[in-house]
Each structure stands twice: as C-alpha cells, then as structure tokens.
C-alpha cells in the first residue's frame, strides 16, 4: 500500500431526481492498495456513492478525481451477479474485453486466468442458471477482474448469500486482493464483513449521507478464522456498531 490516491472525492453532493439530497459534503481519498469498506444504514446513499466513484453518475457538487477512468482500469461488482443468462460463464467473463475491442487470443487467455482466479476453471461452458448463487457471484467477480483493473468497486455483492458461503467468499476475495494488489472499495451492511476484510472502514450517516466516522483496522494480512474469533475483532465490531447507532457524530478512530 502507498499514499498515492487512486480515487479522491472532494466535497461531493448529489441530489435524487426529486430534489432530495442524497449525499452531502463527502470528501474521501482511496489510496493505492487499500481495502476500504463503506457501511451505513439502509438508504444512506452507499450505492449512489459507489456509482459516483465508478463514473456511472455525476455529482451535483464537488469533484471526483480518479486515476482509474480509462475503460478496463475500473471493475465493478453489483448487488446481483447481473450475468447474461443466455451466455456461458466464459462469454460473461469475456464481455468487458469484447466491449473494449481486445483481440480474440487475448480474450481467451484473460478469461482462462480470471476463471482460475475464482476457482471456476471447469465451468467455462456452463450457463449461469446451472450455477449456485455463490458461483454466480464468483463469475461476476471474475468478470470485474478480467481486464486487470486498478480499482475494484463492489456493491454489497455477498448480501444474498448464506453465512457459510459468505465467509468463503470473503476469504477468497481477500486472497485475490492480496495477490493481485488491486485497490478495493466495498459497500456492505455487514460490520462483520467490514472488520474482517478492510484496512479502513468509512461509516455513513442517515440521509443525506455523510461520512461521520473512519476506522482503521490494523490487523495484519492474511486474515482468517483466528482474526474472526479474536477479542480484538469483536471489540472493533462493537465500536463500529456504537458509532452507527450515534447519528451525526463526526469521529476518527
């Protein structure tokens, strides 16, 4: 990790089409190699914030400065796997490269590597309907990684999965992040997930969404069951929960 920001948001505000203020005065820097998690109550604008980071929406005020704006430098995983149901796993993973107009040989190589990364090498010809929920989400992650992005944005990707699959996916994601050296921003409802995965957790207030607290998690990687079961993990999680329950408080831990 270094201090070079991949993404910087400066005094961002965003209104919904009805004029309702969704995000207000958000300033945050995401540094290269970080794993930043954004938590907050439902409807606080976490997904809107992620869309602004991805360039899928524009702010009404403030600036988004991104070093990962060229197509392919930024990968995104949505709440649902959002796969093309008629296309095979390989074709789904290949989609970003096809849209970028990459040659067929490169596409085949990159798809094979991405599927290996998420342990789905034997499922290239399968259709999404033939896979489990966890496997479909792994396909979505492979698709986001296939272009070799600098920045990976994830919008509650594991919310619909059962506890056990979710834990496995967390560990797999962490291993990928560590190995590929990418920068990750994850939006989640789960404090458990936030504490397990992140180098830094940003806590948002209720609408209009603002960042009311920021917590650094200094536990070393690789992280696994010992970290999950530790007293320090429970204490950090409890502290985040207390901050979430105390609205409109600005704090930095």
């Amino acid at each position, binding site marked *: 990790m270094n201090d070079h920001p991949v993404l910087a948001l400066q005094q961002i505000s965003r209104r919904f089409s009805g004029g309702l203020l969704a995000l207000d005065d958000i300033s945050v820097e995401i540094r290269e190699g970080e794993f930043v998690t954004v938590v907050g109550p439902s409807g606080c604008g976490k997904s809107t914030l992620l*869309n602004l980071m*991805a*360039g*899928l929406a524009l702010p009404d005020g403030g600036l988004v400065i991104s070093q990962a704006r060229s*197509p*392919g430098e*930024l990968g*995104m995983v*949505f*709440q*649902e796997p*959002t796969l*093309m*149901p*008629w*296309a095979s796993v390989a074709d789904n993973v290949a*989609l*970003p490269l*096809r*849209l*970028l107009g990459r040659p067929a040989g490169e596409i085949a190589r990159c798809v094979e590597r991405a599927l290996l990364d998420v342990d789905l090498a034997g499922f290239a010809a399968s*259709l*999404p*309907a*033939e896979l489990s929920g966890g496997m479909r989400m792994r396909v979505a992650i492979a698709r986001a990684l296939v*272009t070799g992005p600098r920045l990976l944005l994830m919008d509650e990707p594991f919310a619909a999965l059962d506890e056990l699959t979710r834990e496995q996916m967390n560990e797999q994601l962490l291993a990928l992040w560590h190995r590929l050296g990418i920068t990750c921003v994850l939006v989640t409802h789960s404090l458990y997930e936030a504490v397990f995965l992140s180098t830094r957790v940003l806590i948002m207030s209720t609408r209009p969404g603002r960042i009311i607290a920021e917590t650094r998690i200094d536990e070393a990687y690789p992280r696994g069951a010992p970290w999950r079961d530790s007293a320090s993990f429970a204490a950090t999680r409890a502290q985040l929960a207390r901050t979430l329950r105390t609205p409109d408080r600005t704090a930095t831990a």
Partner: protein
Amino acid sequence: MKRPGTAWPAWLRWCAPLLLGVLILLGWQWLVHALELPVYLLPAPSEIWRAGADAWPLLLQSAWHTLRLAMIAFSLAVAGGVLIAVAFSQSRVLEAALYPYAVVLQVTPVVAIAPLILIWVGVDNAATAVVLLAWIVAFFPILSNMTLGLRSVDPGLRSLFRLYGGSRWQELRLLRLPASLPFLLSAMKVSAGLSLVGVVVAEFVAGSGTSPGLAWRIIEAGNRLQTARMFAALLLLASIGIALFAMLAMLERRLLARWHDSAR
C-alpha cells in the same frame, strides 16, 4: 389422491385431450343419428370425413395457398416488427411519433380496411391485398412485445456496458437483442395464428371465384349448402393453426430451455 405440485405424466397430458376429443366425436355422431338432423344443418363426423376425403386434392391445394400467404405475411410481420422495434429502441422520439399510428392500425378492424387496400393494390392483385391485410393483423404483437423486450434489460448490465464504454451497436447486439428473444418468440406464437386468421378474413373480403384459398372453399361450400365440406375446410384450417403454434412452441423450448424460466 394427487398431491399438489406433482407433475402430470407426459402421456396423460397428450392422452387427456385426445380422449376427450374421441368422446365428443362419438357423442356428436350419436346425437346426429338419434335426432335425425339433416346433413346441411349438422353433418355427422363420418360425413365430414367422407366430404374431406372426396375433396382432398382441392382442399389441400387451397390450404397450401392460404398457408403460403400466411407465411409470407408472418415473415414480413416478424421482420417489420423487429426492425421497427429496434428503431424505437434507438430513438424515443421516433417511438413517440410512430407508436400511436401502429396502435391505430391495430385497433381498426381489418375488414373495414380491406376495401381500401383492394382499391390501392387493384382487384387483380388479390393475393397482395390479402398478404398486406394479414400483415396488418399479425405485425402488432411482434412490434409491441419486441419493443417491451428490448427495454426489459437488467439495469446492472446496462451500467456494465456504460462502464466499459460499450457502443449502442454493441449494447443492441450483445445485450438487448438476446434479452428480447423470449418476448419475440412468445409474440411469434400469437402472430403466426393471427396471420392465418388475417389471411382467411382478407380472403373472405377480397376473395372472389378466382381466389383459390381455403376461405373461398368455405364460402363456396356454404353457398352450395355443402356443410360437411365446410367443416372439413374448417378442420384443415384449425389443424394448420395448431401445427404452426406447436412448431413455434417447440422452437421456443429449444432456444430458451437452458436459460429462461418460461421454458424450463
């Protein structure tokens, strides 16, 4: 007792309607003989069979003519409906401007338009008029469903295309067209039947002694009080409609079976 949610065996799904059909035919045959109904009022199934067998070459020739016109109208309806729906998906202004006129065309009874079409294409070109009228009837379900299908795309996938700078052509080819396939296939099942209905209605209106279609055979038989032959022609028409529907349903299952809930 059959438990709810248990699937019926395949043979029962085929046998039940067949058995019911046989029972109805037997009841019909018995009723006609028991009440001594005149053959011009309600012929017995055996009379219909005999009339059909006697006029078989003529009926088959007429059926082929009607089917050929229906298939031309159906193909044009699919091509036109898909092309116009694609144009609508690329331009909201075009859709806003044209869609109301497509609705007007759909809700105006084809029988009422027929004389106008005949004047325009000329009485000597009855086949062209019939195809045009059948196209008007068959085209709207394709346009309507295809327009809906091209719009019914996962917003997440659309975001993904934007994220990677996908062009409108790529979005159409890789996303919107495949996503609209279930809508198109469903509309094709309706449209095929409607194109047959359209041809028959148009033949009734535009047809004359020179028209060789099944509709004219029905009119001709009616004028001569050959009710059994009328029934035979009607049965042939219904069989063509069922065959078209069955073929398109099979195509739908084949194309969607692996990925779409409707075909699994």
